[in-house]
């Protein structure tokens, strides 16, 4: 890592260390006597678009945060490419939150910021930011304050921003939970394009239809455990767990 003179970004350039495969082993989290994650083993490998699915409160979002090292587990370990994640800056991992966090800056400055943090040279930042906005169809909004965008536009910008640093893997935590069908379609298209472009994707959702549209591989989480994991075709057509079968059939789960 090289030191940076940039006061906005802290120090250093982006880490070159690989992230995939992400492995979680024996992950457990308990809060106020409730088991939120219960001895979860999971592996995210390059390639398939993985959908982590399950009912509300199952532990999907928490699991994603643990894998991204935003939340430390009470027990178990996370490794990125075989080693424990350090505190390196700008890891090659993008994260999109359910409620997008828009910096109090213009649309293009939101993108420039992450490029700056990732150590992209100043001369390249502008071009890279413009290219990223063009790819996401947001060029016409480049100069607008990011916080006045609609919910769908903000989420599209969050994805553009996460992809601008060319991450190895993109983690998305229910990015369309608050969006209408048209905005949802735009987000799904953006995610699919990124996946086709070579970025691995882990997408958390409780929306069955969305999971069917996107998933190559499904991890079904229920009561803090992975109740079932496998290829999407098999999961939707012949689920092996009762919980998954009930969820797919629209029956209420206890």
């Amino acid at each position, binding site marked *: 890592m090289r030191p940076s003179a940039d*006061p*906005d*970004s*802290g*120090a250093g350039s*982006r*880490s070159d260390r690989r992230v995939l495969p992400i492995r979680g082993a024996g992950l457990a989290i308990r809060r106020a006597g409730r088991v939120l994650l219960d001895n979860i083993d999971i592996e995210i490998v390059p390639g398939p678009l993985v959908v982590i699915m399950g009912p509300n409160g199952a532990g999907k979002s928490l699991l994603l*945060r643990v894998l*991204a090292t*935003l939340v430390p587990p009470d027990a178990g370990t996370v490794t990125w490419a075989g080693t424990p994640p350090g*505190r*390196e*800056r*700008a*890891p090659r*991992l993008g*994260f999109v*939150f359910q409620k997008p*966090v828009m*910096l*109090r*800056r*213009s649309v293009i400055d939101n993108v420039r*910021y*992450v490029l700056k*943090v*990732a150590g992209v040279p100043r001369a390249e930042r502008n071009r890279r930011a413009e290219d990223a906005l063009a790819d996401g169809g947001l060029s016409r909004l480049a100069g*607008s*304050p*990011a*916080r*006045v965008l609609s919910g769908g536009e903000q989420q599209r910008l969050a994805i553009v921003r996460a992809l601008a640093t060319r991450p190895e893997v993109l983690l998305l935590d229910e990015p369309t939970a608050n969006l209408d069908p048209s905005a949802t379609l735009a987000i799904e298209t953006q995610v699919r394009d990124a996946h086709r472009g070579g970025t691995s994707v882990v997408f958390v959702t409780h929306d069955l239809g969305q999971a069917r549209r996107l998933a190559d591989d499904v991890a079904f989480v229920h009561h803090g455990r992975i109740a079932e994991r496998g290829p999407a075709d098999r999961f939707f057509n012949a689920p092996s767990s009762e919980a998954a079968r009930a969820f797919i059939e629209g029956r209420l789960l206890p």
Partner: protein
Amino acid sequence: MQDFSAAFGEAFRLVASLDPDLVEIVGLSLRVSLSAVLAAALIGLPLGAALAVARFPGRGIALVAVNSLMGLPPVVVGLLIYLALSRAGPFGPLGLLYTPSAMIIAQMVLVIPIIAAVTRQTVEDMKDEYDEQLRVLGVGTAGMVATLLWDARFSLLTALLAGFGRAIAEVGAVIIVGGNIDHVTRVMTTAIALETSKGDLALALGLGLILLALAIGVNAAVMGLRRTAGHAAFG
């Protein structure tokens, strides 16, 4: 009653004619207080932001200390600075006592806790929103402080405004360390106190009017800037 009317009339005449003594006093007041706020901002803004972002043992005590120091009695600060700058004090050789620099130091000490405390609260509120996003980008503590200060810059004008209000209206500390020396360290508040005790109500009233106008003008200007520039930047 007639005396009051005459005093008001004379006060308005002094203001309208830009009386040289009055202009000098107002100029020095602004120079001292703006310098104090600028210096206090250089310390108080990063200090407040660091308190909002960093987690360390004793942080709770530090927060209580900063909040408590907002209510520092000016005469006590004046006395402590006086002792530090007096000939026998540790900074006596610098010869700062009874100079505008001593007044700037006193006001700065009074203003730092205000700026730090307001900054801490403002930045902490924003940090709650930004925290996970910045952490997932790998932004460290120093980077987070810089980012939050920049993004909160228009909200933080309120902190500077509160500091300026405290500085420009303060009399206890500056009269002790400045001495209220005519043409050297006489500022609006000390002049008002002196002229009132001498019975020269016209100059006191004139300065009082200007002090009020300055307080209202600076508030209006900062609020206007916060609204227009903040809206342009953040929506």
